C-alpha cells in the first residue's frame, strides 16, 4: 500500500471550493425575472456570484472569488441597473486584460449578467455573472496517461496542460507495509523555460527521491511534433524482503512523440536514456549471484504507441535495457519489457462523443454525470544474462508502480504490479531466489459513478439559453483563421496566388475608373433621393472593395478574396444596376452605359479572381479542426461528463507471477471506493490475497490522495 498524501497547495482556494459546495445546495431554482432590469432598482440583492464554467482548463480557477471583490453590486445591498452593467463590463475588462498571459492563437472571453430569483413581494433577487475564457492547449498528446488522469483526476488534467506552472512545494506523508511510515517533500518550478521538479521520501527503513531538469522542443519536420529532454538524479534505498538494495544514478533522457494521426487519434512515442551510477545489494548469498557493491550503467531504448480513439484509450510500449556493473565476470544483462494498457469510459446512459467539428449543444444535465470505467494493464518482462543484474534492476512486485524511465507523460511499468501484496514483496520472500528475471502482471479496475454533482453551474445549464452555443464561436473563428493561415503557407496556393495578384491589380484600376465615372454624374441628378442613397452605398462599398483589391494585389489572402468575390462585388453590382437604372430614368443614358461597361469589366475580373483562387479549402479546414480538436473534446467532456464531485465504487482484479522465485501465480481481488472532489481524488481499495503464504497477510490496502494544482 502506498498512500500519497499531498496537502492542498492553496488552502484558501480549497476552503472557497468547499464553501461553494456547501452553499450551492442552498440555491433555489431560478425564478423568472422577465421585467426590464431597471424595474428591479432598489431590490435587495441576496447573493452575487461570478460563475466560471471551465475553470478546470483555464488558469482562472480562483478568479471568481478575486473578481467578486471588485464588483459594485454586493450582497444585502440594493440592486441598480447602473451597477449591474458596470460589473459586467468590469468582468469583461478583467478577462481581456489576462489575454496577455496566454500564447494561444485565438482567445475569447465572455462576460454576461443574469438576474435570478426575483421576488416581487420581498423585493429580493440574486445576481449571477457568467464568465468564460477559452484556452486551447497547444500540445496535448492523446495518451492513455491523459485518460487515466482524467478518470482519476477529472478536474485537473486539462488545467495541468493549460496552466503555466509555478512554484509548488508540498510535504508528503504516508504509510506503506514495506516502508512503514514515511514523509517527504515534492516540488516543481519553472525557471528560464526549464521545468525543475523533484521528490524525496524517507522512512525508518527507506530513502528515495529524484530531481529532474526538463526541457522541451517543438516540431522538427517529420521526426517529432513534441520532444522532451531531461537530466535526472535518482536515488533509491529500499527493503526487499529480508534484503535491501540501493541505487543512485544520473540519467540523461530524450523522448519524442509524433503528431497525432487523424485515424484513431494515435501518436507514436520513442525515446532513449543513458544512465550511470552506483548500486549496492545487502543480500549476497552465493545462490543469488548478486553484486554487493559496484558501479552501474545502462542504455535504455523504448518505443510505443498510444491513442484515444473514441471513448477508449490504449498504450503499447516496449523497452530494452542493456546494463552492466562493469565487473569483468558479469555479462551485460538485457532487459525486455512489454507494457500494454487499455481503458474505456462509458457514460451511462450512453452518449456518443461529439465530433471534432460539431457544435456544442444542449440539453445540459444538472444532475451527476454517471459513467462506467474500466482500466486494464498487462505487463511482462524478461532479463537475459541475468546473473550480473543488480537487485534494484531485477523484478520485484507489489502494490507500487516503478517506471522504466522518469517521464511524467509516459509510464512504462518495469515491475509486476499487484495490489494485494506490499511493495517489493513479490519475488523477495524465499531468501534464496531474490528478484525475478521474468514476470507478468495483469490488472483490472472497474468503477461506476453513483453520486455526485456536475461541474456545470446550474445557472449556465438552465438559465442562459446562449450557453453552450457561445462556446462554438471561438472554435469556428479559430478554425477558419487557422485554415486560412495553412492555405496561405501552402506552396500550391503560393503558386496560384501570382495569377490572383495580377488580376487584382487590374481590378483596382477598373475600380478607380468606376470611381471617376461616378464623379461625372451631374450634381442635381446625384442629389435626387433614390440616386443619392445608391451613390452613398456604392461609395461605401468601393472603399472596402478597393481596399480588398489592393490587399490581394500585394498579398493574396483567401479570406479577403472570399469577401471580395462573394460579398463586396455582388453587392456593388446590385447597387450599380440600381444606379444606372436611375440614371437612365434621368436621361443620362450614355453615362449609365459607360458605368455598366465598367461594372461588367469589374465583374469579369472578379470572376477571373474567383477562378484563379479556386484551391479548395476543405483540407486546410480539416487540418485546423484537427489542431483544435483536443480543446474541443475537453470542453465537450466538461459539458456532458465531468462532475465537481463524485463517488464511485471500485472493484479490482490483479494477477501476477515472478520467476524463478518459487511463489507461483498470485492474485489480488477486492472492492474499493473513489471520491473525486474537484481536483482532489481519494481512491481506496483492498486487495485480498487468496493464495497467501504463511509469511503474508490477508491482503493489502491500496489508497492514494492526490491533488494536482489548478493554477
Amino acid at each position, binding site marked *: 500500500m502506498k498512500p500519497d498524501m499531498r496537502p492542498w497547495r492553496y488552502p484558501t482556494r480549497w476552503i472557497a471550493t468547499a464553501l461553494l459546495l456547501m452553499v450551492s445546495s442552498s440555491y433555489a431554482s431560478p425564478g423568472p*425575472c422577465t421585467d426590464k432590469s431597471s424595474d428591479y432598482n432598489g431590490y435587495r440583492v441576496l447573493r452575487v456570484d461570478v460563475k466560471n464554467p471551465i475553470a478546470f482548463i483555464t488558469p482562472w480557477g480562483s478568479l471568481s472569488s478575486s473578481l467578486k471583490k471588485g464588483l459594485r453590486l454586493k450582497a444585502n445591498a440594493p440592486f441598480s441597473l447602473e451597477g449591474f452593467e458596470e460589473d459586467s463590463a468590469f468582468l*469583461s475588462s478583467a478577462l481581456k486584460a489576462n489575454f496577455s498571459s496566454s500564447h494561444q492563437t485565438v482567445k*475569447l472571453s465572455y462576460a454576461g*449578467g*443574469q438576474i435570478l430569483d426575483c421576488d416581487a413581494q420581498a423585493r429580493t433577487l440574486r445576481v449571477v455573472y457568467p464568465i468564460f475564457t477559452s484556452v486551447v492547449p497547444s500540445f496535448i498528446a492523446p495518451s492513455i496517461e491523459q485518460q487515466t488522469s482524467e478518470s482519476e483526476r477529472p478536474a485537473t488534467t486539462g488545467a495541468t496542460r493549460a496552466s503555466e506552472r509555478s512554484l509548488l512545494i508540498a510535504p508528503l506523508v504516508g504509510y506503506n507495509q514495506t516502508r512503514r511510515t514515511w514523509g517527504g517533500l515534492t516540488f516543481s518550478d519553472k525557471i528560464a523555460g526549464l521545468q525543475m521538479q523533484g521528490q524525496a521520501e524517507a522512512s525508518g527503513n527507506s530513502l528515495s527521491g529524484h530531481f529532474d531538469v526538463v526541457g522541451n522542443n517543438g516540431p522538427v519536420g517529420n521526426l517529432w511534433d513534441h520532444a522532451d529532454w531531461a537530466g535526472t538524479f535518482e536515488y533509491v534505498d529500499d527493503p526487499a524482503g529480508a534484503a535491501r538494495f540501493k541505487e543512485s544514478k544520473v540519467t540523461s533522457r530524450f523522448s519524442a512523440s509524433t503528431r497525432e494521426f487523424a485515424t484513431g487519434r494515435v501518436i507514436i512515442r520513442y525515446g532513449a536514456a543513458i544512465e550511470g551510477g552506483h548500486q549496492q545489494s545487502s543480500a549476497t548469498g552465493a545462490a543469488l549471484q548478486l553484486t554487493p557493491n559496484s558501479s552501474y550503467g545502462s542504455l535504455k531504448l523504448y518505443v510505443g504507441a498510444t491513442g484515444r480513439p473514441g471513448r477508449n484509450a490504449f498504450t503499447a510500449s516496449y523497452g530494452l535495457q542493456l546494463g552492466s556493473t562493469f565487473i569483468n565476470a558479469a555479462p551485460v544483462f538485457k532487459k525486455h519489457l512489454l507494457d500494454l494498457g487499455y481503458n474505456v469510459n462509458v457514460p451511462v446512459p450512453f452518449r456518443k462523443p461529439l465530433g471534432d467539428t460539431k457544435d456544442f449543444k444542449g440539453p445540459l444535465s444538472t444532475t451527476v454525470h454517471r459513467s462506467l470505467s474500466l482500466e486494464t494493464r498487462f505487463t511482462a518482462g524478461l532479463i537475459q544474462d541475468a546473473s550480473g543484474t543488480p537487485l534494484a534492476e531485477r523484478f520485484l512486485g507489489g502494490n507500487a508502480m516503478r517506471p522504466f524511465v522518469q517521464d511524467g507523460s509516459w509510464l512504462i511499468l518495469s515491475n509486476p504490479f499487484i495490489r494485494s501484496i506490499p511493495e517489493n514483496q513479490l519475488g523477495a520472500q524465499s531468501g534464496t531466489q531474490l528478484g525475478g528475471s521474468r514476470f507478468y502482471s495483469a490488472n483490472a479496475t472497474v468503477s461506476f459513478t453513483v453520486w455526485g454533482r456536475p461541474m456545470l453551474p446550474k445557472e449556465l445549464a438552465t438559465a442562459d439559453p*446562449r450557453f453552450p452555443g*457561445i462556446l462554438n464561436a*471561438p472554435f469556428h473563428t479559430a478554425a477558419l483563421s487557422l485554415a486560412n493561415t495553412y492555405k496561405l503557407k501552402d506552396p500550391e496556393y503560393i503558386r496560384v496566388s501570382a495569377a490572383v495578384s495580377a488580376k487584382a491589380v487590374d481590378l483596382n484600376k477598373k475600380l478607380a475608373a468606376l470611381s471617376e465615372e461616378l464623379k461625372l454624374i451631374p450634381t442635381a441628378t446625384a442629389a435626387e433621393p433614390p440616386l443619392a442613397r445608391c451613390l452613398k452605398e456604392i461609395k461605401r462599398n468601393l472603399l472596402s472593395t478597393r481596399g480588398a483589391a489592393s490587399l490581394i494585389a500585394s498579398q493574396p489572402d483567401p479570406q479577403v478574396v472570399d469577401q471580395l468575390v462573394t460579398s463586396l462585388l455582388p453587392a456593388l453590382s446590385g447597387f450599380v444596376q440600381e444606379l444606372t437604372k436611375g440614371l437612365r430614368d434621368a436621361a443620362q443614358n450614355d453615362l449609365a452605359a459607360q458605368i455598366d461597361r465598367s461594372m461588367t469589366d469589374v465583374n469579369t475580373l472578379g470572376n477571373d479572381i474567383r477562378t484563379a483562387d479556386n484551391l479548395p479549402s476543405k483540407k486546410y479546414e480539416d487540418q485546423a479542426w484537427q489542431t483544435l480538436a483536443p480543446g474541443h473534446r475537453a470542453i465537450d467532456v466538461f459539458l456532458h461528463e465531468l462532475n465537481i464531485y463524485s463517488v464511485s465504487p471500485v472493484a479490482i482484479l490483479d494477477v501476477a507471477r515472478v520467476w524463478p522465485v518459487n511463489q507461483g501465480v498470485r492474485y489480488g481481488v477486492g472492492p474499493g471506493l473513489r471520491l473525486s472532489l474537484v481536483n482532489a481524488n481519494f481512491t481506496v481499495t483492498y486487495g485480498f490475497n487468496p493464495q497467501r503464504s504463511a509469511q503474508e497477510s490477508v491482503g493489502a490496502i491500496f489508497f492514494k490522495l492526490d491533488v494536482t494544482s489548478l493554477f
Partner: protein
Amino acid sequence: MPCRPIHVNLEVDPSATQKILLSLDKTCDANDQATWKMSFELLEGKPLATVVKLNVEIDAENHPQAEATAASKGLDNNQQGQAKIAAAIAKDPTVGDDDKEDAAQQVIAVKRLPQTAAPVNA
C-alpha cells in the same frame, strides 16, 4: 426576453508580429433598449504596437448580426476578410475617420445569418 448585458472579447494572433483584437459589447439602458458597440484594434510589429484602434457603435440594423457573432459561430470567413480590409483602410491616411469606422462596421454587417441566402450588402 429582457435585455441583459453581453461582453465578448476576441483576440486573434495570426503571427508573432500581428494581433487583432475585437470586442463586442451589448449594454442595456433603463428602457431595456440594447446598444451594441464594437472596438477593433490592430497591433503590428516587433514589439507589437497599436496601428489602428476604432470604437464603433453598431447600427441598429446590424444588431442581429452582432448577436449572431457573439452567440453563435464567431467571425466567419467573410467577416475575417472584412476585418483585414478594415485594418488596411484604417491605416490609410487619405481615408477619413467616418469611412474608417464604416469599414469596421462592415465586419459585423457582413455576417451571414442562417436565413440569409443572398450576400449581405457591404
